[in-house]
């Protein structure tokens, strides 16, 4: 490796580390992202400079086309995506990253000959091939898992697709995948076996994501993010490049930390999220059909008359109906009337970590009005009206009342303690956990059925007329 190349990579790695550090604090996050991008640019420039001079397998014009088309597609995707579609976007990009690492591994393997492997020495060849196996396995799982997650997030795939013994199949696939990856080291010329590994990995990724419920998506997203980092680190061992190893390991570790945070927010063990399917058995426990009266916006608006404090709980439903701007307008109208308005954000509200915060930021909701679960739960008992917009599982009292149920023990927002709870929702249907929500049937609860945005607009008009 040229000296300037090694030095450039070192600088890139430092920029990534400082960038990630800065991304963790609101004041420095923008700069953190810029530093990360700068580190990436530097790594690319240095690599091109070092590789320049020799014409390789696809030639520089094709390399230019690959870089150019990728950049163009990336720019268009980033400009076009709606903030509500952010989880799908991140999932897809994540999948692309994993696929890239896997494709590099495959390309390196197909470009190898017994002679070139012999040139690497026994240890070199074993590490090269082992890393190819790891990169292939992790990379393809990341791709199909991410695409599966994306299809679940945008609603193409609904519910949890599972069958008896799915965990056994997953375990078997993983074992076969590991065995094939290991066999690759001893038998690198067996290309059909490698394609078998690709197939097994793809299937494993699909089976890994499909049985997981939508409420667990933040966990899945974080974990896939971690996997794409690990795939990059494995690719680093394939091409013998430390900057990939460092960056990949950083992202892998960061993703694991986020996965842990998300699991904690739902009070679920990681193993449960991965291997227990919810939402099938829980729905049918009580045979009785309960009905609930839907209220009109006019009636709901009256409850806002003369109140002092209002807490708004946004959920994924708010995102789906793009209601965040109306929510902010309503909050501002209430504030004009001297009402104290706060937002309570559940850590797993939405479909990816921190999703609600992004949406509310987009709607210009002041940062200091957003409260986390621990900071707000004691305040519900002093709250006059709690407005729940498209949230369900995150306010379900069953987390307290039914400790053995699917939601049992999950930290929830105690909306039930508010004097009046207004819930804007499309229907009474249970949330992703498949548990009926007791809160809907309480006498202190008013249900406003309909599209979140339309209902809130009505509510806003009525409140203005008070």
């Amino acid at each position, binding site marked *: *490796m040229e000296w300037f190349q090694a030095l450039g990579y070192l600088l*890139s790695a430092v920029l*990534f580390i400082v*960038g990630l*550090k800065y*991304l*963790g*604090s*609101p004041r420095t996050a923008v700069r953190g992202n*810029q530093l990360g*991008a700068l580190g990436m640019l530097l*790594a690319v420039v240095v*690599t091109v400079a070092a*590789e320049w001079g*020799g014409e390789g*397998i*696809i030639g520089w014009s*094709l*390399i230019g086309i*690959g*870089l150019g*088309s990728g950049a163009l*597609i*990336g*720019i268009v995707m*980033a400009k076009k995506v709606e903030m509500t579609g952010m989880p799908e*976007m*991140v999932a897809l*990009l994540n999948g*692309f*990253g994993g696929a*890239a690492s896997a*494709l*590099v591994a495959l*390309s*390196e393997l*197909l*470009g190898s000959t017994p002679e070139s492997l012999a040139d*690497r020495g026994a*240890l070199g060849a074993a590490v090269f091939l082992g890393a190819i196996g790891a990169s292939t396995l992790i990379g393809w799982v990341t791709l199909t898992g991410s695409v599966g997650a994306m299809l679940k997030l945008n609603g193409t795939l609904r519910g949890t697709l599972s069958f008896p013994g799915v965990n056994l199949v997953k375990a078997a696939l993983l074992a076969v995948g590991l065995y094939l990856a290991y066999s690759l080291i001893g038998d690198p010329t067996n290309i059909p076996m490698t394609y078998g590994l690709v197939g097994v990995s793809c299937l494993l990724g699909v089976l890994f994501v499909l049985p997981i419920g939508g409420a667990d998506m933040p966990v899945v*997203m*974080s974990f896939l993010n971690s996997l*794409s*980092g690990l*795939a990059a680190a494995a690719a680093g061992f394939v091409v013998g*490049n430390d*900057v990939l*190893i*460092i*960056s*990949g*390991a*950083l992202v892998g*570790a*960061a993703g694991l*930390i*986020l996965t842990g945070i998300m699991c904690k927010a739902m009070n679920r063990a990681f193993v449960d999220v991965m291997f227990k399917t919810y939402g099938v058995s829980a729905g049918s426990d009580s045979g009785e059909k309960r009905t609930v009266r839907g209220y009109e916006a006019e009636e709901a608006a009256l409850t806002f008359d003369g109140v002092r404090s209002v807490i708004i709980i946004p959920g994924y439903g708010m995102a789906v109906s793009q209601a965040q701007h109306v929510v902010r307008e309503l909050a501002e109208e209430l504030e004009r009337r001297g009402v104290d308005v706060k937002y309570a954000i559940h850590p797993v509200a939405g479909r*990816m970590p921190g999703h609600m915060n992004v949406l509310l930021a987009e709607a210009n909701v002041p*940062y200091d009005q*957003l409260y986390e679960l621990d900071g707000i739960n004691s305040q519900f008992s002093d709250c006059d009206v709690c407005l729940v917009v498209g949230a369900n599982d995150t306010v379900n009292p069953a987390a307290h009342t039914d400790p053995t149920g699917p939601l049992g023990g999950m930290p929830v927002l105690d909306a039930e303690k508010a004097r009046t709870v207004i819930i804007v929702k499309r229907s009474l249907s249970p949330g992703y956990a498949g548990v009926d929500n007791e809160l809907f049937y309480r006498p202190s609860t008013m249900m406003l059925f309909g599209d979140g945005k339309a209902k809130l607009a009505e509510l806003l008009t009525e409140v203005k007329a008070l």
Partner: protein
Amino acid sequence: MIVLCLIQLTPSALIASITVLVLAIFLGFELISKVPPTLHTPLMSGANAISGITIVAALMASNAQLSGGNKTVAGILACMALALATINCVGGFMVTGRMLEMFKRKEG
């Protein structure tokens, strides 16, 4: 930087790389452990963009000097990897920037 890169891997060089890997994992744990929930989404998408570093590996694979093997398929795969990794990087950093822009707007 032509065929010279195929120097044989020594055990100490391998251990050096593994050392780097292990230390970076610990560093990653330390870096992320205290992040406000507001920043979880941008952090994730920023980290995701950094995992696009595999673009470097894709560049190297695209410019490999092969003496044999299945050059055509290897080339096609490398080129695909390059495009996908670039989408990952460019899209990832830009979309993270867009999200963070929204947080910033209100502070000013």
